[in-house]
């Protein structure tokens, strides 16, 4: 809708209360690092982070900033840059509850949320210690099978917010996501989506056949703000690549509490963050 346009990621961050459950995509899919930094600046606390299905820099930074009390994920990794230092430190310190999952289980629970059904059955997982440690998941007999056939039931995820970065939005609040259909599912499951985009454009993305197939309608969008290079230092689709040097700097800094604090001061809390991204 017309009033979905927000002036900045700051304004979007202000919509997220402490304790909110937020869904985020993997590093390659369109992570709103700009909004992540704004959330750190706003000092949000006790987030329940649902990673659909994994996270990287975004999760590690939020955890390091003390913004996360629970993380539900199938992995936390910085990929070729190594393990996620703040995630590991928080686990060691016992300050983070981790609900380990497996990727398709997160997808299925999000799809259950998207469909408004209370749960979804899914194959696999039986005999895994992941399942053994998830008391919120059930195993039941497949009622359509005459033989013994246990299957895992995953309760639906309905996050308060889905938070991601898209290519462009129009002034009605429609957002172009291209082939990143996992973002559509997240948006459907979440109560509302907070989105940054490279660019706000004129016209209506839904009315143009060239963009309609990859456009999420404003129905799902609680707020959208323009943030050029909003995924930086992560890569964004075919638009820009990972900022390798910055990632290496992050990993080196985040090995220690002090280094991470210094990183935040230099790249998140200060006013230089936006400039650095340009």
């Amino acid at each position, binding site marked *: 809708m017309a009033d979905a346009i927000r002036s900045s990621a700051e304004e979007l961050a202000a919509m997220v209360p402490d304790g909110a459950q937020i869904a985020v995509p993997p590093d390659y899919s369109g992570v709103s690092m700009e909004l992540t930094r704004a959330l750190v600046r706003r000092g949000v606390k006790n987030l329940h982070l649902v990673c659909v299905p994994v996270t990287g820099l975004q999760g590690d930074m939020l955890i390091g900033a003390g913004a996360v009390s629970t993380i539900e994920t199938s*992995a936390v990794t910085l990929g*070729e840059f190594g393990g996620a230092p703040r995630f590991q430190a928080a686990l060691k310190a016992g300050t983070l509850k981790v609900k380990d999952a*497996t990727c398709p*289980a997160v997808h299925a629970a999000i*799809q259950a949320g998207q469909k408004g059904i209370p749960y979804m059955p899914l194959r*696999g997982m039986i005999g895994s210690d992941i399942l053994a440690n998830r008391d919120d998941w059930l195993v039941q007999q497949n009622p359509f099978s005459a033989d013994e056939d246990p299957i895992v039931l995953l309760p639906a995820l309905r996050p308060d917010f889905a938070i991601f970065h898209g290519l462009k939005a129009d002034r009605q609040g429609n957002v172009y996501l291209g082939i990143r259909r996992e973002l559509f599912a997240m948006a459907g499951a979440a109560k509302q989506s907070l989105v940054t985009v490279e660019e706000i454009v004129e016209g209506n993305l839904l009315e143009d056949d060239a963009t309609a197939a990859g456009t999420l309608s404003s129905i799902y969008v609680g707020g959208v703000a323009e943030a050029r290079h909003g995924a930086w230092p992560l890569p964004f689709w075919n638009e820009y690549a990972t900022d390798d040097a910055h990632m290496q700097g992050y990993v080196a800094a985040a090995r220690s509490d002090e280094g991470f604090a210094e990183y935040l001061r230099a790249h998140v809390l200060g006013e230089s963050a936006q400039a650095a991204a340009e």
Partner: protein
Amino acid sequence: MNPARPSPDEVKPEELLIAIIARLLEGCRLVAAGASSPIPGGGCLLARRQSGGAMHVNILGSRANNLMTNGGVELFDWAGQGRLDAFFLGGGQIDGQANINLVGTGDYPNNDIRWPGSFGSAYLYYLVPRVILFREEHSRRVFVPKVDFVSTPGTSGKDIYRTGGPYAMVTPLCLMGFDTARARFHLKSVHPGHTVEEVRDNTGFDFDVPDDVPETVLPDRATLDEIRRHVSLEIAETYPRFAQRVFPEAMQAA
């Protein structure tokens, strides 16, 4: 002299592994390689070339080799549909029953060492007929008697719906097969330059060894040529640093 089969010192370890993996994929219609998997990815690309176009390859992170337009879930949906014939799994620990640990050592959740997490393993291992276990480190640290955390089990009871599982394990030392009924690995071949003793010394679990262990067959010259001239360039799109390191000549020529 230029026999059809090159000598061992003409074949790089990565080239050998790519060729072994391609052999394991023969006859598949759809195979996929996960993120951070240049050698499995290379094996897929080689296998596709050898299939004459019958094989579809999906490499996560690749633009040119992406078949997914329904989001990240589509890979798992393929597996559920029975369309995905082969996939690759690694593991911080793998034990003699082919159980895989991708979560960490010590007691969960306060592990001594915490790894990234289980990714899709606790699902794909059940549903993909040919899961190829691949590790570039063959050591007792990786191949343990019993994993500390079962991200996904090598075998399941007969009442558990399972159409997939471990098909082979490829390491820098050897190729192993897995007997699901007995939940036990067996040595299939040892790579040139390595020995059965070396495999035993570096493996923390028991496995079967036939009386006569063959040496892993090297790729023939035609295959090596395919890898060096074509697979090298294809894999460079997704793994430029890997390609630069392993195929410097091809990268320079391109």
